């Protein structure tokens, strides 16, 4: 067990990680202080100018708020649904095999592919949503085309895509709860609601926090359906931070400013990481 062998085994993976994770993190911060290089000339140092541009950039603020709403709207609902799904699928309910498949299927489908289908649901005039609301005499909405509904529409797609994935984690956790706890609770005469609230939920806490961290990361990087369904529109109503980075970096080719925008994402993800290390690990009682 020579230490040198240990290092050699690590080398390939760590070198690639350094090249595609650590170096880009450092380089992004560094590049955010430079203008975008043009032609063959090196980029001039501009200090905090990119950040000044950011502060004045309405689309940035819009994307930041959208992303915040996106996270606040999708995370609690998809976690709550995931928990309900897991409880159902873990019980002796009729058709639970079918249900498990139905809930989980969105997880394995490409987001870009299902986004195409969801566009149809939201299509004005003859889309599914219009056909259904038409039955109730309310119609004529352009769901993805109006600023008031577009963000909610893409959030629904995200919830639909994520809930089944999170369900799997809850299912795994539920199956690890020893049956003796239920027996003990039953002997004490605890009703079902009490058992779920006081025994099951606390035991699921570590899973909930793990799922929450994943959900936040996903809220930051899930933009495939934005690219296909709305392209950030209408009037930037569905622009999320990473989508704004993509626009600035690869549509307008302003890489200096895109680096500064990426720094914001890194700060957000860094806070999640620190939060997980410092706060969550201590608060949670692992079994």
């Amino acid at each position: 067990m020579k230490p040198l062998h240990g290092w050699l085994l690590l080398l390939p993976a760590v070198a690639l990680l350094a090249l595609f994770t650590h170096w880009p993190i450092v380089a992004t911060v560094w590049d955010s202080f430079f203008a975008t290089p043009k032609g063959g000339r090196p980029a001039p140092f501009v200090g905090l100018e990119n950040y000044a541009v950011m502060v004045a950039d309405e689309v940035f603020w819009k994307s930041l708020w959208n992303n915040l709403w996106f996270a606040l709207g999708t995370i609690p609902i998809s976690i709550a649904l995931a928990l309900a799904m897991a409880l159902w699928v873990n019980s002796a309910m009729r058709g639970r095999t079918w249900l498990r498949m139905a809930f989980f299927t969105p997880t394995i489908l490409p987001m870009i592919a299902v986004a195409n289908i969801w566009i149809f649901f939201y299509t004005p005039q003859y889309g599914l949503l219009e056909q259904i609301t038409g039955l109730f005499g309310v119609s004529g909405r352009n769901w993805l085309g109006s600023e008031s509904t577009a963000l909610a529409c893409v959030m629904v797609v995200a919830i639909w895509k994520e809930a089944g994935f999170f369900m799997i984690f809850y299912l795994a956790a539920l199956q690890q709860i020893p049956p003796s706890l239920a027996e003990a609770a039953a002997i004490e005469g605890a009703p079902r609601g009490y058992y779920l609230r006081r025994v099951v939920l606390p035991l699921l806490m570590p899973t909930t926090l793990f799922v929450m961290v994943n959900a936040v990361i996903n809220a930051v990087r899930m933009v495939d359906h934005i690219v296909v369904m709305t392209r950030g529109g209408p009037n930037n109503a569905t622009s999320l931070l990473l989508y704004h980075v993509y626009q600035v970096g690869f549509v307008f080719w302003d890489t200096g400013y895109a680096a500064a925008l990426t720094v914001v994402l890194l700060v957000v993800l860094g806070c999640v990481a620190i939060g997980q290390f410092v706060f969550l690990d201590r608060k949670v009682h692992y079994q």
Partner: protein
Amino acid sequence: MRLYEPRGWALGLETAAAWLLGLLWILPLVYAVWTAFHPPEFSAKFVLGAPLTLENFRRAWEAAPFARYFLNSFMLVTMVLAAQFLLCTLAAYSFARYEFRGKEIVFLLVLVQLMIMPDVLIVENYRTMARLGVLDSIPAVGLPYFASAFGIFLLRQAFKTVPRELDEAARVEGAGPLTVLWRVYVPLAKPIYLAYGLVSVSHHWNNFLWPLIVTNSVTSRPVTVGLQVFSSGDQGIDWSVITAATLLTSAPLLLGFLLFQRQFVQSFMRAGIR
């Protein structure tokens, strides 16, 4: 849990709610199947007796070089999986069984990637690919994902459960570290490899933003990026062809999922536990 199953009217109510949610969840797929197998005039009209057809699939197949895209996706997924298995195995073995100074710090550095995935670092990674001169190639799509923190973590956990006696016995027989790894650790971690493999394959088959950025020709685009041509049609949207193309794109994973549903879900479960 069996003791605390819902009973009586609560059971009825919950079953109804679960089934309703299940129907809602599967609805997009049902719609896609309906539209893809029926003539275009039935794409938004749901008539029971509508004639079945495979014409939409033929038209979708001809509207884009899907054969090439499938080949690209297949090569991409295989390449990424092979590289991940190899690199993660070596690194995980080192973390699980070797002692050296700075190990904890390096491990923390690896875990950074769990939070900050290459998906977020697109600007800088694009620049790196340009410097390496590999833009618009299949390796460029896969490279940032070759070293996977998730894989290293998962395999490290698995390797740690291997009894040291097995390891030592093999060494007494004169096996070197790599032989021990290959003969003892890898076979014992087979279920983890399966789980991780399924997660990795579905993730990279479905990946979109990074391939969209880094590829721009037919010879390197995966199916997900190829599919995009259908959604950017200004000449009126043909839902039948779009849904057919959508089903084509998802078919390999969907078929695999339907055939191995139990293993699929269980492997995701196993891969999810930290």
